[in-house]
């Protein structure tokens, strides 16, 4: 080791395990030191990501350590290697070399099996069960226990998704430690003592009540029980026995029956690594895949359980063409020809609008971007199926696109201070929340929001109260603790996609970042948002962050694509495309994975547009109204790359081989029929092209936004605040009732003063937007900003974009009662 090696600074300890000498950093646990030299010590409770517990006692080893005089003296009894740290000169003998340790481990195994049922044949864990494996390795062939085993009623439903078989539990406390230390949702805990000790649902009448109570009445589900965690599925994965199972997978299959394929979750912009287990072409379950730089060991419940959407009965397998008002199944060539004919007519007429949606891979988004520019000759393309603005586009083009790996998960974990604006760590971030929670106590977290959400509360965040739409003013005038904290080296400002709806907010965030030196990161919600920005699936952006309005940038892209020019006319954004299609200014729409309920007015636009082509996995509302429907593959049936919010390329291979085509292949066929060689027929070709294009030169980028803050609403007006909850009625969560059962109840929130003014005590509120019918949901009074009403964006009974036809930050009408 040289002097510059950072490892040299670490204190090390040298010890002997099974006769082999090993040098490890001070403070290492014996079990980790043994792992390093390939010595396996059986264990149940030990998990590298959790704090040591020493609960199962399976890892007992013989330890001898030097005393004060330096004589190596053995401990009188075997010690748990998962809780004991190493010391210099220690001599450890595991079950491989010490009869005493072997005897101790066998004794523990026998004790663990006393109350463990012998139901391996019908247990879900059978075949991948550490207890089963170790019992086969070192257990007795015959049990000496002749009495009746302890039995419990089974299964105990901790939530609609997580089921507990208490008789199988070996009380290792991995699940309770995970929920306390990692997720922060102590919804299960150890109860009782001795032989009756068991894991149970959280109950203040038992020991170890930590004083936590749910954030408010709204935090409880319909049954009145405290809701479960957004990360509860991880406890199923780390359970070393079959005690915790999920309703979705329970008794569905056997581990040795499954084919496992690595993949990337399509549910959020974190790009969590997952493992898809499938058989006979059907996904049975998804597990977290360990990825130390992104999601570590964990994924959200949405990543884990929401996969059945793609195998619903309305899954499309054949192209559909509307004939005599009915959609009929036709061959691919016929459908492509029909789509091309319609798009050609519209292109030569008033034009085509392209709405790819925010869930695409980089390759698919690139194909959309190229098809729009080359085959349809338009910049009317916008992948943002949500509130969008020109300011946001300028921000994305100048700051995000082509910037490569910016702020990473590791940076976020190490940041001394984090300011979140328009971003809810738990609801919109998923595993981002878990990473930030790792630094609980070491990191100052500030959140600019109308109220302290449960996720922010678990991060011990300081609330910077702000009504939606007023974020720009807050950021511009930020002083005091928050400002000083952001001046620290490595501080991070997180802006969410919701800021697009607030004029001036992103401009203010950029300014604040420059003033404080804090790094700025944009964390959108959907998996394909960052990829779409990189691929140029926005009206004013060409691939790599090149501005469509800059002639040199257009020329560079045209040269790379081998064409004379790319369209220079300014493109319409999503709202303008919807408006133009509704008014007849656009004759056709090419729509990808967009739910009409996410974009206000899209349903009307599709009805009014002369010709609609839909690329869909399922027979969605768009497909139902389209003239040509081209079926495309869901993420598990195709290969591709998601670009996560860090800017990290998250490539994944096909998990289940089917004949479903990716969007980029379908668009390649479509372009060929339109007389253009798109060259997006294969993943390799697309990626080579993207790599060759590279990121934009600074002079080719759009200018940073300089938008002004919006006007404050009139006094007495109530402004809408809203964001998506992690588990809601999103299209990718269809067909999973167990998961839906763990979602948070739909409630509206308003402040005590606003409630007083409106005369609200308890019951329901009716919130009406500008043109919509409005929603009626139960409401709760929350400690929050006055003159604001909060609604979940797409939870049961509260579909804001569709029912209210407005976006957060706008004034709404609130009425007490139905």
């Amino acid at each position, binding site marked *: 080791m040289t002097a510059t090696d950072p490892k040299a600074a670490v204190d090390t300890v040298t010890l002997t395990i099974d006769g082999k000498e090993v040098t490890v950093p001070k403070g290492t646990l014996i079990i980790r030191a043994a792992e390093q030299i390939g010595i396996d010590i059986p264990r149940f409770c030990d998990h590298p990501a959790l704090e040591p517990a020493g609960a199962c006692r399976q890892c007992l080893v013989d330890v001898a350590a030097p005393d004060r005089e330096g004589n190596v003296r053995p401990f009188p009894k075997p010690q748990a290697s998962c809780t004991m740290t190493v010391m210099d000169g220690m001599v450890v003998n595991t079950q491989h070399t010490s009869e005493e340790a072997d005897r101790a481990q066998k004794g523990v195994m026998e004790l663990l099996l006393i109350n463990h049922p012998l*139901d391996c*044949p*019908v247990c879900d864990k059978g075949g991948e069960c550490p207890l089963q494996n170790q019992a086969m390795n070192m257990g007795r062939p015959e049990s000496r226990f002749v009495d009746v085993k302890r*039995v419990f009623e089974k*299964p105990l439903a901790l939530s609609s998704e997580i089921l507990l078989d208490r008789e199988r539990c070996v009380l290792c406390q991995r699940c309770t430690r995970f929920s306390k230390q990692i997720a922060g949702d102590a919804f299960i805990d150890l109860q009782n003592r001795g032989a009756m000790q068991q894991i149970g649902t959280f109950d203040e009448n038992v020991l170890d009540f930590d004083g936590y109570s749910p954030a408010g009445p709204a935090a409880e589900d319909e049954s009145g029980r405290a809701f479960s965690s957004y990360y509860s599925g991880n406890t199923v994965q780390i359970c070393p026995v079959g005690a915790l199972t999920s309703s979705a997978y329970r*008794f*569905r*299959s*056997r581990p040795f*029956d499954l084919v496992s394929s690595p993949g990337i979750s399509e549910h959020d912009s974190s790009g969590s690594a997952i493992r898809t287990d499938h058989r006979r072409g059907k996904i049975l379950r998804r597990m977290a895949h360990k990825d130390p730089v992104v999601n570590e060991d964990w994924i959200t419940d949405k990543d884990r359980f929401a996969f059945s959407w793609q195998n619903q009965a309305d899954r499309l397998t054949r192209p559909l063409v509307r004939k005599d008002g009915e959609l009929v199944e036709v061959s691919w060539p016929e459908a492509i020809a029909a789509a091309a004919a319609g798009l050609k007519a519209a292109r030569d007429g008033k034009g085509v609008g392209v709405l790819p949606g925010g869930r695409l891979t980089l390759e698919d988004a690139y194909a959309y971007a190229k098809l729009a520019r080359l085959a349809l000759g338009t910049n009317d393309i916008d992948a943002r199926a949500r509130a969008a603005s020109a300011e946001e586009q300028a921000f994305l083009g100048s700051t995000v696109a082509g910037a490569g790996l910016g702020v990473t998960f590791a940076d976020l974990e190490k940041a001394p201070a984090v300011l979140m604006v328009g971003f809810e760590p738990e609801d919109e971030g998923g595993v981002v929340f878990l990473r930030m929670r790792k630094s609980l106590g070491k990191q100052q977290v500030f959140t600019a929001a109308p109220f302290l959400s449960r996720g922010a509360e678990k991060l011990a965040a300081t609330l910077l109260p702000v009504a939606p739409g007023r974020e720009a003013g807050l950021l511009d005038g930020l002083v005091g603790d928050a400002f000083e904290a952001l001046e620290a080296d490595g501080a991070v400002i997180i802006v969410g996609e919701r800021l697009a709806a607030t004029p001036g907010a992103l401009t203010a965030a950029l300014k604040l970042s420059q003033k404080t030196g804090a790094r700025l990161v944009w964390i959108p919600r959907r998996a394909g948002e960052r990829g779409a920005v990189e691929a140029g699936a926005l009206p004013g952006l060409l691939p790599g962050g090149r501005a469509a309005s800059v002639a040199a940038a257009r020329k560079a892209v045209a040269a790379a694509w081998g064409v004379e020019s790319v369209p220079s006319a300014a493109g319409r954004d999503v709202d303008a495309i919807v408006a133009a299609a509704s008014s007849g200014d656009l004759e056709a729409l090419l729509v990808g994975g967009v739910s009409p309920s996410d974009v206000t007015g899209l349903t009307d636009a599709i009805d009014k547009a002369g010709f609609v082509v839909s690329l869909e996995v399922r027979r969605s509302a768009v497909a139902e109204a389209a003239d040509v429907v081209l079926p495309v593959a869901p993420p598990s049936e195709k290969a591709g790359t998601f670009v996560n919010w860090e800017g990290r390329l998250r490539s994944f291979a096909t998990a289940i081989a089917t004949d479903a085509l990716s969007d980029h292949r379908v668009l390649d066929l479509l372009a060929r029929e339109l007389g253009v060689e798109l060259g997006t027929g294969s993943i390799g070709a697309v990626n080579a092209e993207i790599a060759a294009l590279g990121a934009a030169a600074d002079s080719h980028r759009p200018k940073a936004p300089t938008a002004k803050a919006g006007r404050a609403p009139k006094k007495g007006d109530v402004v809408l605040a809203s964001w998506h909850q992690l588990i809601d009625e999103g299209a990718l969560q269809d067909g999973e009732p167990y998961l839906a059962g763990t979602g948070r109840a739909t409630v509206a929130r308003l402040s005590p003063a606003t409630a007083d003014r409106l005369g609200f005590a308890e019951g329901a509120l009716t919130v009406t937007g500008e043109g919509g019918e409005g929603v009626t949901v139960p409401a709760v009074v929350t400690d929050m900003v006055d003159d604001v009403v909060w609604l979940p964006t797409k939870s049961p009974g509260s579909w804001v974009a569709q029912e209210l036809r407005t976006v957060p930050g706008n004034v709404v009408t609130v009425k007490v009662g139905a």
Partner: protein
Amino acid sequence: MTDADETWEVNRAKDGQEKPFESNLPKKGALGQALAPVAGFGITLRNFFKPTVTEQYPRVKTPPMPRYHGRHQLNRYPDGLEKCIGCELCAWACPADAIYVEADSNTPDAQFSPGERYGRVYQINYLRCIFCGLCIEACPTRALTMTNDYELAGPTREGLIYEKQDLLAPLEDGMLQAPHPMVPGTTDGDYYRGDVTKVAKEQTAWVREHRPDDPTLPENAVMAAEETR
């Protein structure tokens, strides 16, 4: 004439010359040698007086040995609920890949077996089955056993893939056709240990409410018997 042919001829010539053939059978006496040409009839005559072993198979069906590995059967508990829980261990044990199982969840409206799951689809392909019985050993609830039925031939492939209804044990007297709820107050463990011995009143009432025409209801059984008479 090749060399090989020549060798053949020479060897042939030597055959029997150096050592003539000698039978290993004991030599018979003079009478024996005299009767040798008709001795074979003695065997025929002797067998006239022995019991016959010919089985008149299609007309007379002889039962095989009690542990004969014949067609499978999916058994029921005494109240008519199915024993199969759809765990698929039989399919896993099968060396010939002859068994296909798809399980489904029992619901309060349709409880087919005690516990949480039942086998919704159960197929055994008798063109593949080698009757080894490993599936029987694998079954954790003794739902799958083998009968002595050996008549497993047919004119079509499809016909030899036996479905669940072909394999399910017939309902014995007093059993109630599934689906119906479990005996109140019992668990799947009680069923497994044999503590459930007959149909409970509540189960009959449930079936009466949901399927009043079910032929396995006591009142309908009487009617059915009268009709037969």
